[in-house]
């Protein structure tokens, strides 16, 4: 029931937004729908603890992992949609957009969110692929929403790179299906249904599954933003409106990663852990290294955040490579922590660039003096992003590292720790420039459109939530453990 309610809520909001012309309350309506989704997701998490839920003749399915992803999507989209009204207002007043495009924006955002929800709630791995591909289409328009040269260029690159990547994931899915058709021994009805695939996973032909999984890693990896197919990510994230960047970085990447997690379980069952581990480890480490070197001399605020997303996705891949229940639980916690933190970062970066009129790091100065609250949120968000306690990313990164060393990958941990330290240094340098750089005695400037208290509270609340998640066990632990079990042997 809850599953349907979630999708219906999101679809209803989409419908309303599509039916009416743009009004500020529509933005708030979408935020409310996100809040409802979040609430229903929490409810679903609770019920899913006792076993998977089904809906619509077994075409929708929610186990703890799906429920957890719904929570992530709900949380991040709540943050992002809450900023819709404000962003549209800013763009309308500055003439960047018109009410027509504002309506497009809201509708597409809702479509985007609905696609992600359907991706995690579907029982069918094929539909999962379709949903993720559909997000590409929705977000392409969102990336080009500002209709500048840069926005078009970014969305062009985005759609080309992602389409070709995700096509490979489709080929991988097909090969899994093919392998399943020809499983020896057990006679059963072949389908792309998750439970069916998993029940046959042990009998899948290893050679085909190997190729299939490799293609899936490349394909979904593109969407996750893993190197070497990451190149669309910095461009798209830097050109999209801030809430869209928040959604993309906060959940879209993770939803694609969710697909990888599912297929990893299949591959491990068919192949044993060695090959999936090696593959994920390589792409994870390459992504991490790439993000590291690109962050050192980064010049653009939003691109900086984008590369940081690549970094975190690399970490997730390394964690998933290990694939023990502890590692997966930590990976999931990391997904949530990263999602919330990164959306806070993108949203505040949006405010910053709007206020300062640039996203160039060297031209943003003395933020803490000019806008103490915004600067403070940004600063604490960065602290969370570099995984310092008490934020939850600290707990998840440490537990991933633990699991990795337990699996004998201490050298990978060593490499990633060095990368993380360099990234810390790089981000610290950039943060120094933006938060404290330049003239120190700048008085706080009262902006005509200073962040309203409600949104400030929301951002601060999100950071506090990160702290609570990193500090206390009760909200998540049982869900994480349960969810990890669904994709670990």
């Amino acid at each position, binding site marked *: 029931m809850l599953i349907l309610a979630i999708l219906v809520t999101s679809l209803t909001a989409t419908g309303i937004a599509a039916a009416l012309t743009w009004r500020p309350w529509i933005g708030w309506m979408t935020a409310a729908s996100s809040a409802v989704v979040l609430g229903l997701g929490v409810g679903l998490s609770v019920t899913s603890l006792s076993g998977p839920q089904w809906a619509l003749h077994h075409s929708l399915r929610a186990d703890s992992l799906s429920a957890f992803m719904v929570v992530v999507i709900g949380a991040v989209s709540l943050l992002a949609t809450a900023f819709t009204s404000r962003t549209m207002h800013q763009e309308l007043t500055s003439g960047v957009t018109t009410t027509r495009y504002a309506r497009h924006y809201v509708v597409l955002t809702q479509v985007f969110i609905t696609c992600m929800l359907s991706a995690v709630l579907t029982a*069918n791995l*094929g*539909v999962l*692929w*379709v949903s993720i*591909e*559909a997000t*590409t*289409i929705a977000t*392409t*328009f969102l990336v*080009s929403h500002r*209709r500048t*040269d*840069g926005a*078009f*260029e*970014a*969305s*062009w*690159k985005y*759609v*080309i790179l992602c*389409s*070709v990547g995700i*096509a*490979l994931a*489709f*080929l991988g*899915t*097909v*090969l899994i*299906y*093919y*392998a399943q*058709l*020809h499983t020896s021994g057990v006679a059963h009805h072949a*389908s*792309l249904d998750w439970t069916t695939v998993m029940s046959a996973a042990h009998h899948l*032909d290893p*050679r*085909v599954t190997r*190729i299939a999984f490799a293609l899936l890693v490349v394909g979904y990896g593109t969407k996750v933003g893993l190197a070497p197919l990451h190149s669309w990510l*910095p*461009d798209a994230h*830097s*050109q999209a409106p801030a809430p869209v960047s928040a959604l993309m970085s906060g959940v879209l990447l993770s939803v694609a990663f969710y697909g990888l997690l599912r297929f990893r379980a299949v591959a491990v069952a068919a192949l044993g852990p060695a090959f999936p581990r090696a593959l994920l480890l390589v792409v994870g480490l390459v992504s991490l290294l790439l993000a590291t070197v*690109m962050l050192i001399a*980064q*010049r*653009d605020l939003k*691109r900086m955040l984008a590369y940081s997303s690549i970094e975190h996705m690399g970490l997730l891949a390394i964690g998933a490579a290990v694939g023990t229940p502890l590692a997966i639980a930590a990976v999931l916690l990391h997904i949530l922590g990263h999602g919330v933190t990164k959306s806070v970062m993108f949203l505040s970066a949006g405010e910053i660039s709007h206020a300062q009129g640039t996203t160039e790091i060297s031209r943003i100065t003395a933020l803490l003096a000019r806008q103490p609250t915004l600067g403070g949120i940004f600063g604490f968000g960065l602290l969370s992003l570099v995984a310092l306690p008490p934020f939850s990313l600290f707990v998840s990164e440490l537990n991933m590292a633990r699991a990795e060393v337990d699996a004998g990958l201490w050298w990978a941990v060593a490499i990633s720790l060095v990368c993380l330290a360099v990234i810390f240094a790089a981000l610290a340098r950039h943060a120094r420039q933006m938060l404290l750089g330049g003239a120190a005695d700048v008085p706080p400037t009262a902006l005509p459109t200073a962040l309203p208290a409600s949104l400030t509270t929301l951002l601060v609340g999100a950071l506090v939530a990160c702290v609570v998640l990193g500090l206390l066990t009760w909200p998540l632990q049982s869900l994480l453990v349960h969810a990890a079990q669904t994709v670990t042997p």
Partner: protein
Amino acid sequence: MSTTYVGVLELAAGAVLLSAVMTLWRRSVRAIVSMLRLQGVALSVVAVDLALHEHEHALLATGALVLVVKGVAIPALLRRIAQRDPRSRESRPLVNVPASLVFAAALIVLSYVVGTRITALAPSVVTNLAPLGLATVLVGYFMLVTRRHAVSKIVGLILVDNGIALMTFLLTSGVPLIVELGASLDVLLVVVVLQFLMVSMRHHSATDRLTEMKALHD
């Protein structure tokens, strides 16, 4: 097993790959689009042929869908784009045509090496053709990488997709209809999106060299 069925299948599958290679060879955008249309038709022939032989109604529907989407809609869209484009030639590919063809040959060999590993699971007359699909994927990707023209890029993308569809038909006689439907529509939508982007760009900005834009970089 009727020989006609196999013959048609082999011919159509071969046509898919051949048309892919031809797109590398031809420079005129219009010709490339025609190749693409040919490929879409061949693809639908494969699907229909398989469907008739195996009495799969779903696959028949898929074949029809493929014909509509890949044989008609997409080429038509691309043709419209190409007509508006004054420079409708792939003038300066990153890898020149002869070299491209050599590469394509190498890629085809590679797809046979890899493809045999896949077909080894259930060798049959039908599945043995699957490497053709993989080769189409690789050739399409190669085109995507090396061709500068925006339409060529889109064509490359569709080639990849067609190759995958070919493999799908040959290996599994089509995935469940809903998935296939979604996949085909997605491709269509992607093309629409790309077309929209190109049009908006041209409308909006002085430059229309979409593929040469390098403003966003580090």
